[in-house]
């Protein structure tokens, strides 16, 4: 028994190592292709600088141009905008998922807003909220809120009917069923919806910082575009990628901590 466990742990570890190795390999290949087409001069530096150039540019950004402040500004905006979206979308999604009436009432409006591009809200947002952080958070909010609401509603609608029937069989009233079955049963799915939408939230940072921003990763990228500093654009993109990846990892890790009972996993 003990030996088996050890063996099992060994394979589990190996699986993890392999997973990390493959993950790294993907990036290595990407950088290799990048090197191949830039160092050989196949692509002009204006369109795509070499890795070394980007690395030098990145160091310059951090050391001489306070890039860290831009990163923090962007994190703050995304975080605040997304938290507000989540705080409203989760209860709203639960309500839509539970009751037909509220779905009929709110559902179409949410779906309607969903199809409006977040960028189109910029003029309105500036008009309503000025050009400060709040306006940027609003864009993040508009970009994530409708989808998050619909994702949460969908999770709730998929609660196992049998579980609800068990509660009903003990004479549970609707309020109790929601509290004891619907919500606990939906939490893992809601957490996953948050993970997915937080990732998408990062893709809105450029849109949010497109106009009237004096800081932020998006601002750096737009400035770089103006002055043709291609290297800074790439740095910005890489940093956004890394931050998105970290967000995802935090959600994944906490998922495992919060929902140790979940059977969710890889199919193969």
């Amino acid at each position: 028994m003990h030996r088996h466990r050890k063996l099992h742990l060994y394979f589990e570890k190996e699986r993890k190592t392999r997973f990390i190795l493959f993950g790294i390999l993907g990036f290595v290949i990407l950088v290799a292709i990048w090197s191949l087409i830039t160092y050989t001069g196949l692509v002009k530096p204006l369109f795509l600088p070499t890795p070394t150039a980007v690395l030098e540019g990145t160091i310059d950004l951090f050391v001489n141009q306070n890039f860290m402040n831009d990163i923090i500004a962007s994190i703050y905006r995304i975080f605040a905008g997304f938290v507000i979206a989540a705080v409203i979308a989760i209860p709203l999604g639960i309500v839509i998922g539970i009751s037909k009436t509220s779905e009929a009432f709110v559902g179409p409006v949410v779906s309607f807003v969903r199809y409006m591009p977040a960028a189109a809200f910029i003029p309105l947002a500036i008009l309503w909220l000025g050009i400060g952080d709040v306006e940027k958070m609003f864009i993040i909010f508009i970009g994530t809120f409708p989808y998050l609401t619909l994702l949460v509603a969908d999770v709730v609608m998929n609660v196992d009917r049998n579980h609800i029937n068990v509660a009903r069989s003990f004479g549970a009233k609707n309020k109790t069923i929601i509290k004891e079955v619907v919500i606990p049963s939906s939490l893992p799915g809601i957490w996953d919806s948050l993970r997915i939408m937080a990732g998408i939230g990062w893709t809105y940072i450029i849109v949010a910082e497109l106009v009237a921003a004096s800081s932020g990763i998006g601002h750096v990228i737009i400035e770089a575009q103006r002055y043709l500093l291609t290297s800074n654009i790439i740095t910005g993109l890489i940093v956004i990628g890394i931050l998105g990846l970290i967000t995802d990892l935090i959600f994944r890790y906490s998922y495992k901590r919060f929902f140790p009972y979940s059977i969710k996993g890889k199919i193969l």
Partner: protein
Amino acid sequence: MKAKLEVKNVYKVFLSRNKETPALSDMSFSIREKEFVSVVGPSGCGKTTLINLVAGFYAPTKGEILLNDKRIMYPGADRGVVFQKYTSFPWLTVLDNIKFGLKIINFPHKEREKIAKEYVKIVGLNGFENEYPKNLSGGMQQRVALARTLATNPDILLMDEPFGALDTQTRRFMQDLLLQIWKKTRKTILFVTHDVDEALFMADKVLVMSTRPGHIKDIVDVGLERPRNLKIEFSNKYIKLKEHIQKIITKESLKSLNEPIPETIKQLYQ
């Protein structure tokens, strides 16, 4: 003896997308206190519908169902339901699953733990109290479901093919466990199954249903001695009863068959 459960001229018609599906049609029977009654019938004849009606999940289209002479209107903890599907809550440990019903009926906090632990023992889940359902086999999941239902001490157990998804061996163990629990607690049990052997092995009385819309085709008094053991399945009496019930079910199944009657069945039962 007095009737515990009475099903009186019950009809149930389902409406879906402007289509009417009659599921039960003029079904009547009654169960006495402490009786173990099995229900068998062809597939889709309305067995689950019957359980759901008694559970109070929905009302009959016509007719009435009485429990202790009182008309069933809503679901309630006086009836304990065990479903065919595995229904333990994945986010609760075995012990918390068993406490679930007690929580719903607002049982005093302190005693929940004690009662739940008692039922852990009764259904043989010692040592698994703190496991999550994902780590349990099908048989153990149904033990959890059984304990969760028993913990609130219902008046009658309603079981809808509770062992239908288990392998033969596990099913045998669970049948044995249920009979022991029944002997100890002397609960009234309404037990739906599609397995004639299971119906006979467990029950005092077997209700044989017609094809859909379901009603009672025959009521068979089993009268085999207890405690039951597998040997009775080879007794003459048992075989006679089994043949009798099987014939009715086969005949009923054929009524809703849209193909020519298979040759094997023709020779045996026509």
